[in-house]
Protein backbone atom coordinates (compact mmCIF):
# COMPACT_ATOMS: atom_id res chain seq x y z
CA UNK A 1 0.00 0.00 0.00
CA UNK A 2 2.68 2.46 1.06
CA UNK A 3 4.72 1.59 -2.01
CA UNK A 4 1.77 2.08 -4.34
CA UNK A 5 0.96 5.46 -2.80
CA UNK A 6 4.51 6.67 -3.29
CA UNK A 7 4.77 5.65 -6.95
CA UNK A 8 1.35 7.06 -7.81
CA UNK A 9 2.55 10.46 -6.61
CA UNK A 10 5.55 10.29 -8.93
CA UNK A 11 4.15 8.84 -12.15
CA UNK A 12 0.33 9.00 -12.04
CA UNK A 13 -0.48 7.61 -15.50
CA UNK A 14 1.60 4.45 -15.23
CA UNK A 15 0.37 3.86 -11.73
CA UNK A 16 -3.28 4.02 -12.61
CA UNK A 17 -2.63 1.59 -15.45
CA UNK A 18 -0.86 -0.66 -13.01
CA UNK A 19 -3.70 -0.32 -10.52
CA UNK A 20 -6.22 -1.26 -13.19
CA UNK A 21 -4.29 -4.35 -14.24
CA UNK A 22 -3.90 -5.26 -10.58
CA UNK A 23 -7.64 -4.97 -10.04
CA UNK A 24 -8.19 -7.19 -13.09
CA UNK A 25 -5.75 -9.76 -11.74
CA UNK A 26 -7.49 -9.73 -8.38
CA UNK A 27 -10.87 -10.19 -10.03
CA UNK A 28 -9.52 -13.12 -12.05
CA UNK A 29 -7.99 -14.62 -8.92
CA UNK A 30 -11.26 -14.30 -7.02
CA UNK A 31 -13.14 -15.97 -9.85
CA UNK A 32 -10.67 -18.85 -9.92
CA UNK A 33 -11.13 -19.33 -6.20
CA UNK A 34 -14.86 -19.59 -6.74
CA UNK A 35 -14.72 -21.90 -9.76
CA UNK A 36 -14.90 -25.25 -7.94
CA UNK A 37 -17.99 -24.15 -6.07
CA UNK A 38 -19.65 -22.89 -9.24
CA UNK A 39 -18.77 -26.13 -11.03
CA UNK A 40 -20.32 -28.22 -8.26
CA UNK A 41 -23.49 -26.17 -8.40
CA UNK A 42 -23.80 -26.25 -12.18
CA UNK A 43 -22.97 -29.92 -12.69
CA UNK A 44 -24.42 -31.50 -9.57
CA UNK A 45 -26.90 -29.40 -7.67
CA UNK A 46 -28.79 -27.65 -10.48
CA UNK A 47 -29.47 -30.79 -12.58
CA UNK A 48 -30.65 -32.68 -9.51
CA UNK A 49 -33.02 -29.94 -8.39
CA UNK A 50 -34.30 -29.52 -11.95
CA UNK A 51 -35.04 -33.23 -12.23
CA UNK A 52 -36.81 -33.09 -8.90
CA UNK A 53 -38.99 -30.24 -10.15
CA UNK A 54 -39.70 -32.14 -13.37
CA UNK A 55 -40.93 -35.19 -11.48
CA UNK A 56 -43.14 -33.14 -9.19
CA UNK A 57 -45.14 -32.04 -12.24
CA UNK A 58 -45.03 -35.24 -14.29
CA UNK A 59 -46.64 -38.51 -13.27
CA UNK A 60 -44.03 -41.25 -13.46
CA UNK A 61 -43.33 -44.48 -11.64
CA UNK A 62 -40.68 -47.01 -12.56
CA UNK A 63 -43.33 -49.21 -14.21
CA UNK A 64 -44.20 -46.52 -16.74
CA UNK A 65 -41.67 -46.55 -19.59
CA UNK A 66 -39.10 -43.81 -20.01
CA UNK A 67 -39.28 -40.99 -17.56
CA UNK A 68 -38.84 -38.27 -20.16
CA UNK A 69 -42.16 -39.26 -21.78
CA UNK A 70 -44.12 -38.90 -18.54
CA UNK A 71 -47.44 -37.04 -18.60
CA UNK A 72 -47.66 -33.50 -17.38
CA UNK A 73 -50.14 -33.40 -14.50
CA UNK A 74 -49.83 -29.87 -13.20
CA UNK A 75 -50.32 -29.52 -9.49
CA UNK A 76 -52.12 -32.85 -9.06
CA UNK A 77 -49.20 -34.45 -7.28
CA UNK A 78 -48.87 -31.61 -4.81
CA UNK A 79 -52.58 -31.83 -4.17
CA UNK A 80 -52.41 -35.57 -3.56
CA UNK A 81 -49.54 -35.09 -1.12
CA UNK A 82 -51.23 -32.29 0.78
CA UNK A 83 -54.46 -34.26 1.12
CA UNK A 84 -52.66 -37.42 2.18
CA UNK A 85 -53.29 -37.96 5.92
CA UNK A 86 -50.18 -40.15 6.17
CA UNK A 87 -48.11 -37.17 5.06
CA UNK A 88 -49.72 -34.97 7.70
CA UNK A 89 -48.97 -37.53 10.40
CA UNK A 90 -45.39 -37.81 9.19
CA UNK A 91 -44.99 -34.03 9.50
CA UNK A 92 -46.37 -34.09 13.03
CA UNK A 93 -44.22 -37.06 14.01
CA UNK A 94 -41.09 -35.41 12.66
CA UNK A 95 -41.83 -32.15 14.45
CA UNK A 96 -42.54 -33.98 17.71
CA UNK A 97 -39.44 -36.15 17.35
CA UNK A 98 -37.21 -33.20 16.51
CA UNK A 99 -38.59 -31.01 19.30
CA UNK A 100 -38.37 -33.73 21.94
CA UNK A 101 -34.88 -34.88 21.06
CA UNK A 102 -33.59 -31.31 20.67
CA UNK A 103 -34.86 -30.32 24.11
CA UNK A 104 -33.53 -33.56 25.60
CA UNK A 105 -30.06 -33.12 24.09
CA UNK A 106 -29.95 -29.52 25.14
CA UNK A 107 -31.05 -29.98 28.74
CA UNK A 108 -28.69 -32.88 29.38
CA UNK A 109 -25.83 -31.31 27.43
CA UNK A 110 -26.16 -27.95 29.16
CA UNK A 111 -26.42 -29.53 32.60
CA UNK A 112 -23.26 -31.58 32.00
CA UNK A 113 -21.42 -28.59 30.58
CA UNK A 114 -22.45 -26.45 33.56
CA UNK A 115 -21.17 -29.06 36.01
CA UNK A 116 -17.91 -29.27 34.07
CA UNK A 117 -17.33 -25.58 33.45
CA UNK A 118 -14.62 -25.41 36.12
CA UNK A 119 -11.66 -27.81 36.16
CA UNK A 120 -11.73 -30.63 38.70
CA UNK A 121 -10.07 -33.97 39.22
CA UNK A 122 -11.16 -36.41 36.51
CA UNK A 123 -12.33 -33.71 34.10
CA UNK A 124 -10.56 -35.22 31.09
CA UNK A 125 -11.94 -38.71 31.78
CA UNK A 126 -15.53 -37.48 31.93
CA UNK A 127 -15.04 -35.35 28.82
CA UNK A 128 -13.76 -38.34 26.89
CA UNK A 129 -16.61 -40.59 28.06
CA UNK A 130 -19.19 -37.94 27.23
CA UNK A 131 -18.13 -37.42 23.62
CA UNK A 132 -17.95 -41.13 22.78
CA UNK A 133 -21.65 -41.53 21.80
CA UNK A 134 -21.20 -38.95 19.06
CA UNK A 135 -18.37 -41.03 17.63
CA UNK A 136 -20.46 -44.15 17.16
CA UNK A 137 -21.95 -44.42 13.67
CA UNK A 138 -25.78 -43.92 13.73
CA UNK A 139 -26.41 -47.33 12.16
CA UNK A 140 -24.25 -48.91 14.82
CA UNK A 141 -26.35 -47.14 17.45
CA UNK A 142 -29.53 -48.72 16.19
CA UNK A 143 -28.11 -52.24 15.93
CA UNK A 144 -26.60 -51.95 19.37
CA UNK A 145 -29.97 -50.72 20.63
CA UNK A 146 -31.56 -53.83 19.18
CA UNK A 147 -29.06 -55.93 21.13
CA UNK A 148 -29.90 -54.24 24.43
CA UNK A 149 -33.55 -53.29 24.30
CA UNK A 150 -35.26 -56.64 23.92
CA UNK A 151 -37.87 -57.28 26.57
CA UNK A 152 -35.70 -59.32 28.90
CA UNK A 153 -32.59 -57.44 27.92
CA UNK A 154 -29.95 -55.64 29.94
CA UNK A 155 -31.57 -52.19 29.88
CA UNK A 156 -34.81 -53.35 31.45
CA UNK A 157 -32.74 -55.57 33.73
CA UNK A 158 -30.57 -52.74 35.03
CA UNK A 159 -33.49 -50.36 35.48
CA UNK A 160 -35.37 -53.06 37.41
CA UNK A 161 -32.35 -53.70 39.62
CA UNK A 162 -31.86 -49.99 40.34
CA UNK A 163 -35.51 -49.16 41.03
CA UNK A 164 -36.61 -52.46 42.55
CA UNK A 165 -39.60 -52.57 40.19
CA UNK A 166 -40.31 -55.18 37.59
CA UNK A 167 -39.51 -52.96 34.63
CA UNK A 168 -40.65 -54.58 31.40
CA UNK A 169 -40.99 -52.04 28.62
CA UNK A 170 -41.25 -53.30 25.05
CA UNK A 171 -39.01 -50.61 23.60
CA UNK A 172 -39.05 -52.12 20.14
CA UNK A 173 -42.48 -53.70 19.75
CA UNK A 174 -44.91 -51.26 21.37
CA UNK A 175 -46.22 -48.73 18.81
CA UNK A 176 -46.87 -46.22 21.59
CA UNK A 177 -43.24 -46.28 22.66
CA UNK A 178 -41.29 -46.83 19.44
CA UNK A 179 -40.95 -43.15 18.51
CA UNK A 180 -39.83 -42.35 22.06
CA UNK A 181 -37.23 -45.10 21.77
CA UNK A 182 -35.78 -43.47 18.66
CA UNK A 183 -35.89 -40.06 20.36
CA UNK A 184 -34.01 -41.47 23.36
CA UNK A 185 -31.41 -42.98 21.02
CA UNK A 186 -31.12 -39.63 19.26
CA UNK A 187 -30.60 -37.94 22.63
CA UNK A 188 -28.00 -40.52 23.59
CA UNK A 189 -26.26 -40.14 20.23
CA UNK A 190 -26.19 -36.32 20.06
CA UNK A 191 -26.07 -34.99 23.61
CA UNK A 192 -22.28 -34.72 23.11
CA UNK A 193 -22.94 -32.13 20.42
CA UNK A 194 -24.91 -29.86 22.76
CA UNK A 195 -22.44 -30.60 25.54
CA UNK A 196 -19.41 -29.59 23.48
CA UNK A 197 -21.00 -26.38 22.22
CA UNK A 198 -22.28 -25.36 25.63
CA UNK A 199 -18.96 -26.16 27.30
CA UNK A 200 -17.11 -24.01 24.77
CA UNK A 201 -19.74 -21.30 25.23
CA UNK A 202 -19.42 -21.34 29.01
CA UNK A 203 -15.64 -21.13 28.72
CA UNK A 204 -15.97 -18.10 26.43
CA UNK A 205 -18.34 -16.14 28.67
CA UNK A 206 -16.47 -13.11 30.08
CA UNK A 207 -15.66 -13.56 33.76
CA UNK A 208 -16.04 -9.93 34.91
CA UNK A 209 -19.87 -9.67 34.99
CA UNK A 210 -20.13 -12.91 36.99
CA UNK A 211 -17.51 -11.79 39.49
CA UNK A 212 -19.23 -8.43 39.81
CA UNK A 213 -22.56 -10.15 40.51
CA UNK A 214 -20.90 -12.39 43.11
CA UNK A 215 -19.41 -9.39 44.88
CA UNK A 216 -22.85 -7.78 44.90
CA UNK A 217 -24.10 -10.86 46.71
CA UNK A 218 -26.29 -12.41 44.00
CA UNK A 219 -27.20 -16.08 44.47
CA UNK A 220 -25.85 -18.74 42.10
CA UNK A 221 -29.37 -19.19 40.77
CA UNK A 222 -29.79 -15.52 39.91
CA UNK A 223 -26.30 -15.32 38.40
CA UNK A 224 -27.18 -18.29 36.20
CA UNK A 225 -30.47 -16.90 34.91
CA UNK A 226 -29.69 -13.22 34.80
CA UNK A 227 -26.02 -13.12 33.83
CA UNK A 228 -24.86 -16.39 32.27
CA UNK A 229 -27.91 -17.33 30.22
CA UNK A 230 -28.23 -13.92 28.50
CA UNK A 231 -24.51 -13.94 27.70
CA UNK A 232 -24.83 -17.46 26.30
CA UNK A 233 -27.80 -16.66 24.07
CA UNK A 234 -25.99 -17.00 20.71
CA UNK A 235 -24.53 -20.35 21.69
CA UNK A 236 -27.83 -21.62 23.06
CA UNK A 237 -29.55 -20.62 19.85
CA UNK A 238 -26.91 -22.39 17.78
CA UNK A 239 -27.15 -25.59 19.83
CA UNK A 240 -30.94 -25.66 19.51
CA UNK A 241 -31.20 -24.72 15.83
CA UNK A 242 -28.55 -27.07 14.47
CA UNK A 243 -29.78 -29.98 16.53
CA UNK A 244 -33.39 -29.40 15.47
CA UNK A 245 -32.49 -29.33 11.79
CA UNK A 246 -30.41 -32.49 12.08
CA UNK A 247 -33.20 -34.23 13.99
CA UNK A 248 -35.72 -33.30 11.27
CA UNK A 249 -33.47 -35.15 8.81
CA UNK A 250 -32.80 -38.17 11.03
CA UNK A 251 -33.02 -41.29 8.92
CA UNK A 252 -30.43 -44.01 9.64
CA UNK A 253 -31.46 -44.89 13.19
CA UNK A 254 -35.20 -44.76 12.53
CA UNK A 255 -34.90 -46.80 9.38
CA UNK A 256 -32.40 -49.41 10.51
CA UNK A 257 -34.32 -50.08 13.70
CA UNK A 258 -37.97 -49.82 12.66
CA UNK A 259 -38.49 -49.26 8.90
CA UNK A 260 -41.41 -47.05 9.90
CA UNK A 261 -43.02 -49.68 12.12
CA UNK A 262 -44.45 -51.07 14.35
CA UNK A 263 -47.55 -50.12 12.37
CA UNK A 264 -46.69 -46.63 11.25
CA UNK A 265 -45.40 -45.50 14.64
CA UNK A 266 -42.01 -44.29 13.46
CA UNK A 267 -42.99 -43.06 10.01
CA UNK A 268 -41.25 -39.69 10.11
CA UNK A 269 -40.90 -37.46 7.04
CA UNK A 270 -37.60 -38.91 5.81
CA UNK A 271 -38.92 -42.44 6.33
CA UNK A 272 -42.20 -41.73 4.52
CA UNK A 273 -40.42 -40.11 1.57
CA UNK A 274 -38.05 -43.05 1.43
CA UNK A 275 -40.89 -45.58 1.45
CA UNK A 276 -42.91 -43.71 -1.17
CA UNK A 277 -39.94 -43.50 -3.48
CA UNK A 278 -38.07 -46.74 -2.94
CA UNK A 279 -40.73 -49.18 -1.81
CA UNK A 280 -43.87 -48.03 -3.60
CA UNK A 281 -41.75 -46.63 -6.46
CA UNK A 282 -43.99 -43.58 -6.74
CA UNK A 283 -41.11 -41.42 -7.84
CA UNK A 284 -43.32 -38.47 -8.74
CA UNK A 285 -45.26 -38.41 -5.51
CA UNK A 286 -41.99 -38.72 -3.64
CA UNK A 287 -40.60 -35.81 -5.62
CA UNK A 288 -43.60 -33.60 -4.89
CA UNK A 289 -43.36 -34.55 -1.23
CA UNK A 290 -39.66 -33.78 -1.27
CA UNK A 291 -40.31 -30.34 -2.71
CA UNK A 292 -42.85 -29.53 -0.05
CA UNK A 293 -40.49 -30.73 2.69
CA UNK A 294 -37.63 -28.82 1.10
CA UNK A 295 -39.66 -25.60 1.09
CA UNK A 296 -40.68 -26.22 4.69
CA UNK A 297 -37.06 -26.79 5.69
CA UNK A 298 -35.85 -23.78 3.73
CA UNK A 299 -38.38 -21.65 5.59
CA UNK A 300 -37.14 -22.98 8.93
CA UNK A 301 -33.50 -22.58 7.86
CA UNK A 302 -34.05 -18.98 6.70
CA UNK A 303 -35.55 -18.06 10.06
CA UNK A 304 -32.66 -19.86 11.76
CA UNK A 305 -30.07 -18.13 9.60
CA UNK A 306 -31.67 -14.76 10.25
CA UNK A 307 -31.47 -15.34 14.01
CA UNK A 308 -27.93 -16.72 13.87
CA UNK A 309 -26.68 -13.82 11.75
CA UNK A 310 -28.18 -11.30 14.14
CA UNK A 311 -26.42 -12.97 17.05
CA UNK A 312 -23.16 -13.25 15.12
CA UNK A 313 -23.23 -9.58 14.21
CA UNK A 314 -23.68 -8.55 17.83
CA UNK A 315 -20.79 -10.87 18.74
CA UNK A 316 -18.62 -9.35 16.00
CA UNK A 317 -19.34 -5.90 17.40
CA UNK A 318 -18.59 -7.03 20.93
CA UNK A 319 -15.28 -8.62 20.01
CA UNK A 320 -14.11 -6.17 17.33
CA UNK A 321 -12.02 -3.97 19.71
CA UNK A 322 -10.21 -7.04 21.07
CA UNK A 323 -9.37 -8.20 17.57
CA UNK A 324 -7.79 -4.82 16.84
CA UNK A 325 -5.55 -5.16 19.88
CA UNK A 326 -4.03 -8.26 18.34
Amino acid at each position, binding site marked *: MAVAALSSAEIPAAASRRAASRARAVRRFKLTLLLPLIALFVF*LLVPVLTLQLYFSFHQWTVYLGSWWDADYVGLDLFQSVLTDPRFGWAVLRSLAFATGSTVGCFVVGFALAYLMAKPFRGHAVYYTLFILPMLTVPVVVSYTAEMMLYRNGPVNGIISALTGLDFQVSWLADPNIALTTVALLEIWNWTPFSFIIMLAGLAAVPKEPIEAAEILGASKWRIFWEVQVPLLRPVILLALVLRFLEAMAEFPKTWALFQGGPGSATETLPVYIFMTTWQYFEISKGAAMSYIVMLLMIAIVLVAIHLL*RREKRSLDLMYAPHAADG
Partner: protein
Amino acid sequence: MAMTKTQRRRIATVVRYGVLSLWALVAFFPIYWMVSTSFKPDNQWFSWPPVYFPSPPTLANYRNVWLGTEQYDVTQYAISSQKPLISMWNSTVIATTSTFLSVLFGSILAYGVSRYRILSEARMFQLLMLRMIPPIVVVAPLSLYYSALGLLDSRTGLILIYFLTTLPYAVWMTKSFIDEVPREIEQAAEILGASRWRTVFEIVLPLIRSGLVATFLFILILTWSEYLLALIITKTQVTTLPIELSKYQGTTEGRVYGRQAALAVGITVPLMIVGLIIRKHLARGFSFGMVRR
Protein backbone atom coordinates in the same frame (compact mmCIF):
# COMPACT_ATOMS: atom_id res chain seq x y z
CA MET B 1 -28.96 -25.43 61.66
CA ALA B 2 -27.15 -23.67 58.87
CA MET B 3 -24.49 -25.60 57.02
CA THR B 4 -20.97 -24.33 57.03
CA LYS B 5 -19.35 -23.33 53.78
CA THR B 6 -17.11 -26.41 53.63
CA GLN B 7 -20.07 -28.72 54.19
CA ARG B 8 -21.98 -27.10 51.40
CA ARG B 9 -19.01 -27.34 49.10
CA ARG B 10 -18.58 -31.01 49.93
CA ILE B 11 -22.24 -31.71 49.11
CA ALA B 12 -21.87 -29.84 45.81
CA THR B 13 -18.87 -31.99 44.95
CA VAL B 14 -20.72 -35.19 45.73
CA VAL B 15 -23.72 -34.11 43.65
CA ARG B 16 -21.47 -33.16 40.76
CA TYR B 17 -19.62 -36.48 40.72
CA GLY B 18 -22.91 -38.33 41.19
CA VAL B 19 -24.64 -36.71 38.21
CA LEU B 20 -21.59 -36.90 35.97
CA SER B 21 -20.96 -40.54 36.84
CA LEU B 22 -24.57 -41.45 36.18
CA TRP B 23 -24.43 -39.96 32.68
CA ALA B 24 -21.01 -41.50 32.12
CA LEU B 25 -22.67 -44.86 32.79
CA VAL B 26 -25.51 -44.07 30.37
CA ALA B 27 -23.05 -42.89 27.74
CA PHE B 28 -20.69 -45.79 28.08
CA PHE B 29 -22.98 -48.76 28.67
CA PRO B 30 -24.19 -49.23 25.05
CA ILE B 31 -20.62 -49.08 23.83
CA TYR B 32 -19.60 -51.61 26.46
CA TRP B 33 -22.53 -53.82 25.43
CA MET B 34 -21.53 -53.72 21.79
CA VAL B 35 -17.94 -54.64 22.59
CA SER B 36 -18.87 -57.38 25.04
CA THR B 37 -21.43 -58.89 22.65
CA SER B 38 -18.74 -59.08 20.00
CA PHE B 39 -16.82 -61.46 22.28
CA LYS B 40 -19.80 -63.64 23.20
CA PRO B 41 -20.47 -67.14 21.90
CA ASP B 42 -23.79 -67.41 20.06
CA ASN B 43 -25.89 -68.76 22.96
CA GLN B 44 -25.26 -65.59 24.98
CA TRP B 45 -26.26 -62.99 22.38
CA PHE B 46 -29.92 -62.91 23.26
CA SER B 47 -30.43 -64.58 26.59
CA TRP B 48 -32.36 -64.25 29.82
CA PRO B 49 -30.96 -63.24 32.19
CA PRO B 50 -28.67 -61.09 30.05
CA VAL B 51 -25.02 -62.08 30.10
CA TYR B 52 -22.99 -59.06 31.16
CA PHE B 53 -19.55 -60.58 30.80
CA PRO B 54 -18.86 -62.99 27.95
CA SER B 55 -17.90 -66.33 29.40
CA PRO B 56 -15.74 -67.61 28.01
CA PRO B 57 -14.83 -64.73 25.66
CA THR B 58 -14.35 -65.85 22.09
CA LEU B 59 -12.80 -64.39 18.96
CA ALA B 60 -15.06 -66.46 16.71
CA ASN B 61 -17.20 -63.46 15.74
CA TYR B 62 -14.19 -61.46 14.63
CA ARG B 63 -12.67 -64.39 12.78
CA ASN B 64 -15.97 -65.01 11.03
CA VAL B 65 -16.73 -61.43 10.06
CA TRP B 66 -13.33 -60.05 9.19
CA LEU B 67 -11.48 -63.12 8.01
CA GLY B 68 -14.36 -65.33 6.93
CA THR B 69 -12.69 -68.30 8.54
CA GLU B 70 -14.78 -69.62 11.39
CA GLN B 71 -18.22 -70.99 10.48
CA TYR B 72 -20.71 -72.38 12.92
CA ASP B 73 -21.87 -75.89 11.98
CA VAL B 74 -25.16 -75.70 13.83
CA THR B 75 -26.58 -72.45 12.63
CA GLN B 76 -25.00 -72.14 9.19
CA TYR B 77 -24.68 -68.39 9.06
CA ALA B 78 -23.85 -68.31 5.40
CA ILE B 79 -22.22 -64.97 5.06
CA SER B 80 -19.84 -64.44 2.24
CA SER B 81 -16.40 -64.09 3.64
CA GLN B 82 -14.18 -61.07 3.13
CA LYS B 83 -17.03 -58.74 2.23
CA PRO B 84 -16.56 -56.56 5.31
CA LEU B 85 -12.90 -56.17 4.44
CA ILE B 86 -13.80 -55.02 0.93
CA SER B 87 -16.32 -52.60 2.41
CA MET B 88 -13.69 -51.34 4.81
CA TRP B 89 -11.46 -50.59 1.83
CA ASN B 90 -14.31 -48.85 -0.02
CA SER B 91 -15.18 -46.81 3.03
CA THR B 92 -11.57 -45.81 3.50
CA VAL B 93 -11.11 -44.73 -0.12
CA ILE B 94 -14.43 -42.90 -0.36
CA ALA B 95 -14.22 -41.16 3.00
CA THR B 96 -10.60 -40.04 2.72
CA THR B 97 -10.83 -38.91 -0.91
CA SER B 98 -14.03 -36.92 -0.49
CA THR B 99 -12.76 -35.42 2.76
CA PHE B 100 -9.47 -34.48 1.13
CA LEU B 101 -11.25 -32.73 -1.75
CA SER B 102 -13.58 -31.02 0.67
CA VAL B 103 -10.75 -29.68 2.84
CA LEU B 104 -8.58 -28.69 -0.15
CA PHE B 105 -11.26 -26.73 -2.00
CA GLY B 106 -12.90 -25.65 1.23
CA SER B 107 -9.72 -24.03 2.48
CA ILE B 108 -9.13 -22.28 -0.86
CA LEU B 109 -12.68 -20.91 -0.75
CA ALA B 110 -12.22 -19.99 2.89
CA TYR B 111 -9.05 -18.08 1.99
CA GLY B 112 -10.98 -16.17 -0.65
CA VAL B 113 -13.74 -15.38 1.81
CA SER B 114 -11.34 -14.33 4.54
CA ARG B 115 -9.10 -12.14 2.38
CA TYR B 116 -11.13 -11.13 -0.68
CA ARG B 117 -14.71 -11.57 0.57
CA ILE B 118 -15.61 -13.66 -2.49
CA LEU B 119 -18.70 -14.74 -0.56
CA SER B 120 -20.62 -12.23 1.51
CA GLU B 121 -21.64 -13.18 5.03
CA ALA B 122 -25.17 -13.85 3.79
CA ARG B 123 -23.80 -16.22 1.13
CA MET B 124 -21.72 -17.99 3.74
CA PHE B 125 -24.84 -18.71 5.73
CA GLN B 126 -26.70 -19.77 2.59
CA LEU B 127 -23.87 -22.20 1.93
CA LEU B 128 -24.85 -23.90 5.16
CA MET B 129 -28.16 -24.81 3.56
CA LEU B 130 -26.35 -27.53 1.63
CA ARG B 131 -25.90 -29.13 4.99
CA MET B 132 -29.18 -28.18 6.63
CA ILE B 133 -31.61 -29.43 4.00
CA PRO B 134 -32.19 -33.14 4.59
CA PRO B 135 -30.47 -35.24 1.91
CA ILE B 136 -33.60 -37.40 1.59
CA VAL B 137 -35.27 -34.68 -0.49
CA VAL B 138 -32.74 -35.03 -3.32
CA VAL B 139 -31.74 -38.69 -3.34
CA ALA B 140 -34.29 -39.83 -5.93
CA PRO B 141 -33.37 -37.34 -8.70
CA LEU B 142 -29.74 -37.72 -7.72
CA SER B 143 -29.82 -41.44 -8.34
CA LEU B 144 -31.52 -40.95 -11.73
CA TYR B 145 -28.99 -38.29 -12.68
CA TYR B 146 -26.18 -40.58 -11.58
CA SER B 147 -27.55 -43.51 -13.54
CA ALA B 148 -27.61 -41.30 -16.65
CA LEU B 149 -23.98 -40.37 -16.03
CA GLY B 150 -22.97 -43.93 -15.16
CA LEU B 151 -21.99 -42.86 -11.66
CA LEU B 152 -24.47 -45.10 -9.87
CA ASP B 153 -22.83 -47.75 -7.74
CA SER B 154 -19.43 -46.17 -8.19
CA ARG B 155 -16.94 -44.70 -5.78
CA THR B 156 -16.71 -41.51 -7.82
CA GLY B 157 -20.43 -40.87 -7.41
CA LEU B 158 -20.32 -41.11 -3.64
CA ILE B 159 -17.12 -39.12 -3.43
CA LEU B 160 -18.66 -36.26 -5.44
CA ILE B 161 -21.81 -36.01 -3.39
CA TYR B 162 -19.93 -36.26 -0.08
CA PHE B 163 -17.59 -33.57 -1.33
CA LEU B 164 -20.57 -31.29 -2.02
CA THR B 165 -22.40 -31.94 1.23
CA THR B 166 -19.38 -31.53 3.51
CA LEU B 167 -17.99 -28.45 1.76
CA PRO B 168 -19.90 -25.97 3.96
CA TYR B 169 -18.33 -27.41 7.11
CA ALA B 170 -14.89 -27.34 5.50
CA VAL B 171 -15.23 -23.70 4.44
CA TRP B 172 -16.52 -22.53 7.80
CA MET B 173 -14.02 -24.45 9.85
CA THR B 174 -10.89 -23.61 7.83
CA LYS B 175 -11.99 -19.98 7.64
CA SER B 176 -11.92 -19.78 11.42
CA PHE B 177 -8.26 -20.86 11.28
CA ILE B 178 -7.31 -18.60 8.36
CA ASP B 179 -8.86 -15.60 10.11
CA GLU B 180 -6.27 -16.06 12.83
CA VAL B 181 -3.30 -15.78 10.46
CA PRO B 182 -1.97 -12.19 10.52
CA ARG B 183 -2.22 -10.49 7.14
CA GLU B 184 1.21 -8.88 7.53
CA ILE B 185 2.82 -12.20 6.59
CA GLU B 186 1.02 -12.29 3.25
CA GLN B 187 1.77 -8.63 2.58
CA ALA B 188 5.43 -9.34 3.20
CA ALA B 189 5.28 -12.26 0.77
CA GLU B 190 3.62 -10.05 -1.84
CA ILE B 191 6.30 -7.40 -1.53
CA LEU B 192 8.93 -10.11 -1.93
CA GLY B 193 7.26 -11.01 -5.22
CA ALA B 194 5.40 -14.22 -4.40
CA SER B 195 2.38 -14.89 -6.63
CA ARG B 196 -1.07 -15.11 -5.06
CA TRP B 197 -1.24 -18.87 -5.49
CA ARG B 198 2.19 -19.34 -3.95
CA THR B 199 1.08 -17.22 -1.01
CA VAL B 200 -1.91 -19.51 -0.50
CA PHE B 201 -0.14 -22.84 -0.88
CA GLU B 202 3.29 -22.09 0.53
CA ILE B 203 2.50 -19.63 3.30
CA VAL B 204 -1.10 -19.56 4.49
CA LEU B 205 -2.05 -23.24 4.28
CA PRO B 206 1.18 -24.49 5.89
CA LEU B 207 0.63 -22.02 8.73
CA ILE B 208 -2.76 -23.56 9.55
CA ARG B 209 -1.50 -27.15 9.19
CA SER B 210 -2.89 -28.34 12.48
CA GLY B 211 -6.22 -26.66 11.72
CA LEU B 212 -6.36 -28.44 8.36
CA VAL B 213 -5.69 -31.76 10.05
CA ALA B 214 -8.45 -31.05 12.58
CA THR B 215 -10.87 -30.12 9.79
CA PHE B 216 -9.92 -33.23 7.84
CA LEU B 217 -10.56 -35.53 10.76
CA PHE B 218 -13.77 -33.72 11.67
CA ILE B 219 -15.20 -34.18 8.19
CA LEU B 220 -13.90 -37.73 8.06
CA ILE B 221 -16.29 -38.50 10.93
CA LEU B 222 -19.20 -37.33 8.77
CA THR B 223 -18.22 -39.11 5.57
CA TRP B 224 -17.26 -42.33 7.34
CA SER B 225 -20.65 -42.75 9.00
CA GLU B 226 -22.96 -41.48 6.21
CA TYR B 227 -25.82 -43.88 5.57
CA LEU B 228 -28.71 -42.60 3.42
CA LEU B 229 -26.80 -41.52 0.30
CA ALA B 230 -24.67 -44.64 0.41
CA LEU B 231 -27.78 -46.77 0.74
CA ILE B 232 -29.33 -45.29 -2.41
CA ILE B 233 -26.33 -44.71 -4.62
CA THR B 234 -24.46 -47.96 -4.03
CA LYS B 235 -26.06 -51.25 -4.98
CA THR B 236 -23.73 -54.20 -5.22
CA GLN B 237 -20.36 -53.12 -6.54
CA VAL B 238 -19.43 -50.55 -3.95
CA THR B 239 -20.65 -51.05 -0.41
CA THR B 240 -19.52 -48.92 2.49
CA LEU B 241 -19.28 -50.19 6.05
CA PRO B 242 -22.56 -48.75 7.43
CA ILE B 243 -24.43 -50.37 4.53
CA GLU B 244 -22.58 -53.64 4.99
CA LEU B 245 -23.69 -53.65 8.61
CA SER B 246 -27.33 -53.07 7.74
CA LYS B 247 -27.22 -55.91 5.20
CA TYR B 248 -25.53 -58.22 7.64
CA GLN B 249 -28.02 -60.84 8.58
CA GLY B 250 -27.98 -64.59 8.70
CA THR B 251 -29.75 -66.64 6.05
CA THR B 252 -31.75 -68.79 8.42
CA GLU B 253 -32.18 -66.43 11.33
CA GLY B 254 -32.35 -62.64 11.53
CA ARG B 255 -30.38 -62.12 14.68
CA VAL B 256 -26.64 -62.59 14.44
CA TYR B 257 -25.83 -60.09 17.18
CA GLY B 258 -22.32 -61.29 17.89
CA ARG B 259 -21.34 -60.96 14.23
CA GLN B 260 -23.03 -57.59 13.89
CA ALA B 261 -21.25 -56.42 17.03
CA ALA B 262 -17.87 -57.57 15.72
CA LEU B 263 -18.54 -55.62 12.53
CA ALA B 264 -19.84 -52.61 14.47
CA VAL B 265 -16.69 -52.51 16.60
CA GLY B 266 -14.62 -52.47 13.41
CA ILE B 267 -16.62 -49.50 12.10
CA THR B 268 -16.56 -47.58 15.35
CA VAL B 269 -12.99 -47.96 16.57
CA PRO B 270 -11.35 -45.93 13.75
CA LEU B 271 -13.92 -43.18 14.28
CA MET B 272 -13.33 -43.04 18.01
CA ILE B 273 -9.59 -42.80 17.53
CA VAL B 274 -10.08 -39.93 15.09
CA GLY B 275 -12.57 -38.19 17.37
CA LEU B 276 -10.34 -38.44 20.42
CA ILE B 277 -7.37 -37.05 18.48
CA ILE B 278 -9.32 -33.89 17.62
CA ARG B 279 -11.45 -33.65 20.78
CA LYS B 280 -10.18 -30.12 21.46
CA HIS B 281 -11.25 -28.91 18.02
CA LEU B 282 -14.74 -30.39 17.96
CA ALA B 283 -16.34 -27.20 19.30
CA ARG B 284 -14.87 -25.18 16.46
CA GLY B 285 -16.19 -27.57 13.84
CA PHE B 286 -19.72 -27.24 15.14
CA SER B 287 -19.91 -23.64 16.15
CA PHE B 288 -19.64 -21.66 12.88
CA GLY B 289 -17.81 -18.77 14.48
CA MET B 290 -20.39 -18.34 17.24
CA VAL B 291 -18.05 -19.31 20.08
CA ARG B 292 -15.19 -16.88 20.72
CA ARG B 293 -12.26 -17.40 22.97
